[in-house]
């Protein structure tokens, strides 16, 4: 039977319950929530409660006076069990009381000794001992990490230490924690061999827009509400930024906006736009996969040729001349003036149509909706959102540059109803010392590890096993190299610490790698670890992050950490303390001194040491007062008891993200060059199915808590792959059948979900699932700056099993609403 909680009633929040500001820790939208806590033996009543409503009556739609069982739990607070309700905040400007299917399960996804939820959370440090992981103290675990690490690093020689560290906000990220790891690895040390949580190098996902002077988060969400046209490229906000779509884009459509969706797949977003705006106001450009650059260059050419450009803006705010930045190893395309870009990017409508598979009429229609001035001659306000469809697609640098070209040419950046912005994954929360020493292109860490690089590997909430490309080979090699160290440790059971460290170093020098895993759960790559350190998430600590419109908020700690788990920033500080001590013991005094400055006791200490040092107006106290609406960065001051922010960047027409003193934006001169990444064309030629891939509504993208959430796993016990029913018939497949997806680099599994709107030979598979890693079939090809190309992947498909018993019970009906 379908999963049901059989909860008939819930405890009522009493008047006087503690109220905490919470920003959802999942996606970049950062919806506002309120966490209420109160003592276990207290409760409100139907006539005396937190909201002053008569709860003996049925409440109406959109009421604030109701919460779902998923919004309730019992957790520890200051050592006491308390009731916890985390419900959407009706007064937050971001979401206006809406909760997504992810965020509205935050309470249920807290660890609870009482209700048994999220028992998978790590609670104690563990070390590999006697052939398995054994719990131990923080000091013991960190001493081992410090002693082994100290053996492979030295002053100005830190290239044998590999670091995988998240750079995001929300969840367990945020300004406190990126500063903690950043100060350690980029301040005390200058670690070059590092990568970020979702890609195999330490690089920007949007180099080109930054190089052009345009920060990728330049608008305010309210711009969607006043736009004439909303252009969505390689993004599926109804599923991936749900309440940005429902609370801002829907309002824009209700106010008359037209919508252009560029996506090879008909997503739920396309259907929802049609429901709201009417099909006549929605243009779905279902391009051939990877042909975005041809489309944008064609649109740019056509718009420029029609004269639908903002000449004053181009003259005043963009570079005049020819080439400002020539193409080189760090720049996969030249950057320069509008006219130089017109010449470099020129593509006729006929050629654009041929490459994209669209009709010429569709392209011209799109150009008109984007840029054709209104009858009174005024600018069409066009706001553009893009995300992984192009970030993790063909020719990242040039594609994003080409899209920003259109925004610049039409004067739609820094203006009301405009903006060209990524929609984002996590929230952001990056504050670190310079990463310039890493270089550009950045080292391709995962391939270096496969090739034998690295001796000690510190991992901060990265799970390469689920979220890298060429994952099958990575796992094989990483298991082998870490097992070498495990075997060496097992062989020296009973040895002293000094003897054990010697044994580990011998195994490392023979090709092994010592793996330290900091995470909130025992992850898949954590299975290979030798030391495991438990971290906390927001709500278990105070945490600051900003959302997709740069809205900075403080999540207030509302519950205790699981066991002895610590904030990442504090773990980094204690690791620095131990490194300093060990180095001093070894007489490496000068190097030891580099690890000073980590005497933080709380996350607020880390915040003040880091973020506050660059933003002195911003303190916890002021952010608490700013509540769930927070303040939009950059913060300009503090006035009348409130932080003063910046709703929209570049309203003065001065572009600074590239660091150019002239403040002029640059255009990207990237011409179309087919499938750019190595091996893609050949893979396409040799395999039948496109394995498009991405996120879905129900689960958070890496499934870390959802893999133990019954509601989620009941719906999709195995990751799905959407296939056209005719293709299913060809392959003899039924809904729910388990298939193997296999190609020249690996194999993975999925359950078959029929999708009548899928084009033949084009499938869509969910990304990052624990029991069907899509990265196994993605080849190692990247762009010049080591941006992975996850999207353009081809493989064959064969049935390996009937549906699993769990998968046989679920619904396989269409996702598109029928009203």
């Amino acid at each position, binding site marked *: 039977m*379908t999963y049901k909680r059989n909860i008939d*009633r*819930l405890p009522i929040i009493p008047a006087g319950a503690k109220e905490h500001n919470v920003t959802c820790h999942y996606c970049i939208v950062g919806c506002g929530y309120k966490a209420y806590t109160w003592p276990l033996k207290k409760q409100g009543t139907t006539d005396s409660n937190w909201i002053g409503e008569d709860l003996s009556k049925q409440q109406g739609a959109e009421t604030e006076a109701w919460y779902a069982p998923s919004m309730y739990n019992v957790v520890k607070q200051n050592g006491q069990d308390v009731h916890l309700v985390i419900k959407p905040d009706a007064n937050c400007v971001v979401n206006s009381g809406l909760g997504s299917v992810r965020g509205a399960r935050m309470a249920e996804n807290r660890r609870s000794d009482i209700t048994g939820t999220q028992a998978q959370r790590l609670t104690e440090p563990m070390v590999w001992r006697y052939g398995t992981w054994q719990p131990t103290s923080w000091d013991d675990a960190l001493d081992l990490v410090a002693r082994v690490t100290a053996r492979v690093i030295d002053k100005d020689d830190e290239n044998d230490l590999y670091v995988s560290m998240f750079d995001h906000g929300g969840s367990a990220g945020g300004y406190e924690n990126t500063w903690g790891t950043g100060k350690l690895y980029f301040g005390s040390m200058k670690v070059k061999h590092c990568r970020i949580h979702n890609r195999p190098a330490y690089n920007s996902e949007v180099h080109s827009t930054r190089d052009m002077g345009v920060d990728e988060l330049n608008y305010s969400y309210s711009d969607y509400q006043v736009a004439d046209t909303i252009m969505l490229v390689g993004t599926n906000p109804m599923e991936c930024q749900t309440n940005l779509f429902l609370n801002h884009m829907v309002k824009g459509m209700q106010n008359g906006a037209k919508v252009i969706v560029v996506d090879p797949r008909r997503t739920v977003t396309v259907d929802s736009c049609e429901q709201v705006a009417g099909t006549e106001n929605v243009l779905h450009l279902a391009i051939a996969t990877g042909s975005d650059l041809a489309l944008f260059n064609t649109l740019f050419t056509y718009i420029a040729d029609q004269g639908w450009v903002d000449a004053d803006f181009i003259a005043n705010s963009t570079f005049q001349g020819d080439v400002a930045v020539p193409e080189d190893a760090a720049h996969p395309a030249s950057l320069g003036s509008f006219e130089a870009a017109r010449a470099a990017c020129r593509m006729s409508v006929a050629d654009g149509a041929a490459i994209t598979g669209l009709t010429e009429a569709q392209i011209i229609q799109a150009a008109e909706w984007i840029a054709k001035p209104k009858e009174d001659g005024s600018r069409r306000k066009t706001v553009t959102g893009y995300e992984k469809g192009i970030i993790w697609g063909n020719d990242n640098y040039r594609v994003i540059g080409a899209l920003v070209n259109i925004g610049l040419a039409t004067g739609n950046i820094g203006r009301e109803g405009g903006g060209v912005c990524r929609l984002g994954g996590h929230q952001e929360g990056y504050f670190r010392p310079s990463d310039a020493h890493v270089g550009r292109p950045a080292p391709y860490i995962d391939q270096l590890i496969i090739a034998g690089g690295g001796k000690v590997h510190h991992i901060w909430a990265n799970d390469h096993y689920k979220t890298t490309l060429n994952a099958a080979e990575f796992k094989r090699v990483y298991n082998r190299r870490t097992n070498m160290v495990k075997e060496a440790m097992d062989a020296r059971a009973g040895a002293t610490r000094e003897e054990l460290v010697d044994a580990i170093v011998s195994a490392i020098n023979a090709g092994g790698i010592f793996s330290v895993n900091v995470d909130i759960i025992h992850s898949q790559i954590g299975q290979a670890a030798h030391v495991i350190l438990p971290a906390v998430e927001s709500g278990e600590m105070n945490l600051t992050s900003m959302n997709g419109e740069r809205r900075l908020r403080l999540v207030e700690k509302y519950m205790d950490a699981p066991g002895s788990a610590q904030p990442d920033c504090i773990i980094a500080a204690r690791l620095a303390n131990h490194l300093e001590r060990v180095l001093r013991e070894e007489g490496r005094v000068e190097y030891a001194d580099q690890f000073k400055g980590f005497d933080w006791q709380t996350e607020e200490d880390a915040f003040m040491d880091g973020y506050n040092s660059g933003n002195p107006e911003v303190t916890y106290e002021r952010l608490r007062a700013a509540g769930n609406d927070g303040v939009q960065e950059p913060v300009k001051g503090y006035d009348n008891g409130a932080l003063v922010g910046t709703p929209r960047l570049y309203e003065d027409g001065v572009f600074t993200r590239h660091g150019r003193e002239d403040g002029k934006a640059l255009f990207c001169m990237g011409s179309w060059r087919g499938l750019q990444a190595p091996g893609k064309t050949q893979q396409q030629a040799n395999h039948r199915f496109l394995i498009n891939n991405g996120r879905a509504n129900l689960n958070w993208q890496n499934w870390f808590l959802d893999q133990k959430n019954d*509601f989620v796993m009941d719906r999709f016990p195995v990751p799905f792959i959407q296939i056209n029913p005719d293709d299913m018939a060809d392959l003899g497949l039924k809904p729910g059948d388990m298939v193997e997806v296999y190609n020249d680099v690996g194999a993975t599994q999925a359950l078959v979900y029929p999708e009548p709107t899928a084009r033949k030979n084009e499938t869509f598979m969910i990304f990052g699932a624990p029991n069907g890693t899509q990265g196994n079939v993605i080849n190692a090809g990247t762009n010049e700056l080591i941006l992975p190309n996850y999207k353009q992947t081809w493989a064959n498909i064969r049935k390996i099993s009937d549906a699993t018993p769990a998968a046989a019970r679920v619904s396989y009906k269409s996702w598109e609403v*029928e009203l």
Partner: protein
Amino acid sequence: MKCNRLVDVGRRQFLRGGVLGAAGAAAATVMPAGQAQAQTARAMVDYPSTRLANVADLAVNEPMDIGYPDADSPGILLKLGTVVEGGAGPDADIVAYSVLCPHKGFYMSYHAADKTLNCPGHFSRFDCEKGGQQIWGHATQNLPQFTLRVDDKGDIYAEGADELIYGRLSNVLQG
């Protein structure tokens, strides 16, 4: 606002409900008002046993509007025509669900072609053949399904619910 218009569509769909829907609504209103409230505080919620209809009143794939556990909690009673897990009646195909979307409480409408309930507010949808499983949507729970008992005369009684109904912190309202 378009959204409100959509809500109105959903409400009309609920109120329309077909000829049999009127009978269903009448059946719901004969329940004594006091029965909807718990008599004493007990560990579990006491659900009323409410006669919704007779098997003979139902036509295949035509939902009947009901109110359960009380008239303020709209639902549908539905004979699917095919055996389903948890289905009641001689053909094991009768089911009943709340029609308030568990996301934000909008009235959902029934789409007979694929036997789903669909929300006009934010486009969530639920499968009436799979215990109310959310096919796609924003609700953090599957649809509350009402427990049914069919007696020897073919009378159908609702006697419980398996998820919290939107808009009430106790499925059986308490004073």
